[in-house]
């Protein structure tokens, strides 16, 4: 190595390390940028004329009315939460049940296979799920429940449940795996059956991780767009039963952003909905992370 190159080595090293640091902090920058740019598009209306009271308490969403434009998002908010919670009603027991089965009951060979299938299930694109809701689930629900419409809350919830189950299973299984084997051995040595061991020892010990799994499942359900846009029937109202069509916050943005003129009031309100969604998922993710770290400390 010539001496001039040797002089350059530290400089090169320094440059590369700066670059690596830059990439490292880029994730923080991007999250921050997402908030700033989404908020920026809606800011003008948010500070002038945006009626938060109407937004959160009225169900009258008439963004393109000629005479009296109203932006009441209550029906959209209840739409998002009713579909999400109904889907969790299905996904949590099945997801946790499958996590327990995979982690504690199933033979090792089958375990590998099941984990692969669950991973593939997680990979199905949301628009394909939406298509499945539109076609297969649609006719199934009409036939099974005698419903007038197959595109409704139940349809969306089942699709969302199938979409969030893989997250619940994989994070739930990690949480169960993190419980030390000595706990299992102690329980079995006392004469517990496997189920007693799971129910009395493992579930309490893995409580936090399982809770985080459920939270991340909810986060996925709340933020899902294409599947609910295609499967829930897209009608703005407070649902009175699971067989009624609903519309969610995400679906509203996806359906209306294309038609709203850039920088119009309507357009800006859609960005404000975006900020609301960002805030909801942000809180859910931070909470889940804090819960998981909580275990790490112990």
């Amino acid at each position, binding site marked *: 190595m010539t001496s001039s190159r040797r002089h350059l080595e530290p400089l090169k090293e320094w440059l590369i390390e700066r670059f690596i640091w830059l*990439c490292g902090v880029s994730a923080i920058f991007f999250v921050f940028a*997402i908030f700033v740019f989404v908020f920026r598009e809606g800011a003008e209306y948010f500070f002038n004329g945006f009626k938060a009271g109407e937004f959160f308490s009225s169900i009258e969403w008439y963004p393109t009315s000629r005479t009296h434009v109203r932006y009441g998002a209550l029906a959209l908010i209840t739409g998002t939460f009713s579909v999400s919670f109904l889907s969790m009603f299905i996904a949590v027991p099945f997801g946790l049940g499958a996590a327990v089965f995979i982690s504690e009951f199933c033979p090792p060979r089958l375990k590998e296979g099941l984990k692969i299938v669950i991973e593939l299930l997680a990979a199905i694109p949301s628009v394909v799920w939406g298509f499945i809701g539109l*076609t297969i689930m649609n006719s199934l629900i009409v036939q099974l429940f005698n419903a007038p419409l197959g595109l409704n809350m139940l349809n969306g919830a089942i699709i969302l449940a199938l979409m969030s189950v893989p997250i619940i299973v994989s994070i739930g299984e990690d949480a169960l795996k993190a419980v030390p084997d000595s706990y299992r051995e102690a329980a079995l040595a006392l004469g517990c059956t496997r189920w007693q061991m799971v129910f009395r020892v493992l579930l309490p010990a893995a409580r936090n991780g399982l809770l985080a799994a459920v939270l991340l499942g909810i986060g996925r359900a709340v933020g899902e*767009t294409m599947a609910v846009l295609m499967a829930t029937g897209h009608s703005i109202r407070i649902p009175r039963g699971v067989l009624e069509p609903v519309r969610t916050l995400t679906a509203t943005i996806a359906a209306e952003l294309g038609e709203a003129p850039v920088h119009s009031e309507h357009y800006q309100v859609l960005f404000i909905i975006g900020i609301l969604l960002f805030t909801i998922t942000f809180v859910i993710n931070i909470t889940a992370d804090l819960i998981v770290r909580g275990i790490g400390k112990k």
Partner: protein
Amino acid sequence: MFEATDQTRRKQRQEKAIQYLLTAMTTIIVLPLLLIIFYLLYKAAPILSLEFLFENPIHGMRAGGIWAPLLGTIYLVLISLLIATPVGIFAAIYLNEYSRESWMTRVINLAVVNLAGVPSIVHALFGLGAFVLFAGIGRSILAASLTLAIMTLPVIIASTKESLAAVPHSFREACWNVGATRWQTIRHVVLPNSISGILTGVILQVSRAAGETAPVMFTGAVFFKAIQTGDPFAYGLLDQCMALSMHLFTISTQVPDVPEALTYGTAVVLLGVVLLFNALAIFLRVKLRGKKKW
């Protein structure tokens, strides 16, 4: 004398019942995947052929193939890959090789988790606000790819970090002891030993980017665009394009009277591409685990 007591028998019955219940629950989760794939394939069978891939949609998207959307998706995926892969790999190198346990690392990890958790439609709003309007790129392949790149960044950071962490620390110590710098160690020891794991992450990223709809819908993908069939360079960087995922959405909800086989065919191709890349990543990972000697 050693006969089971009533209580033991009750316990055994309960144990059996629970096992059956859990097995059934798992089956109910796993079964839909297989049913869905077979049903879609069955419905799409009449139309699936090479011509379907290489012909453009015609007659208001009610006939023909999927060439324009397929090529658009390939463009979007490749360009987003070019942007996200280096940033993601270096970010993972920072997190695994340079940073110490500090509040900064904590915040970065939180940011990565949050970036993965931001709803896809919010990514779309961000792409529209930042790239299309603020940066003035306009609705284009470039703007859509940038949006996709940021969205898929967490995928590659997570898997790269995992494969870097799998390289034993003794490898690094041995390298430092012969006088190599941190970067030299990473470049010549850590990266070569984790390259297959990183590749797995890149493949997963492809699969994720190919399936996304919402982020490209308002940043660069259009309902319809006529391009030359057979010309792989038909799109420019600043052109708008069709995308397979959005095409499926369009023909199944926005266009009336589309023949059933056409929509099912599009769904099968999209699902096929995504699952194929995922299966490849899984295959690579399983093979890798078998080969590892430390």
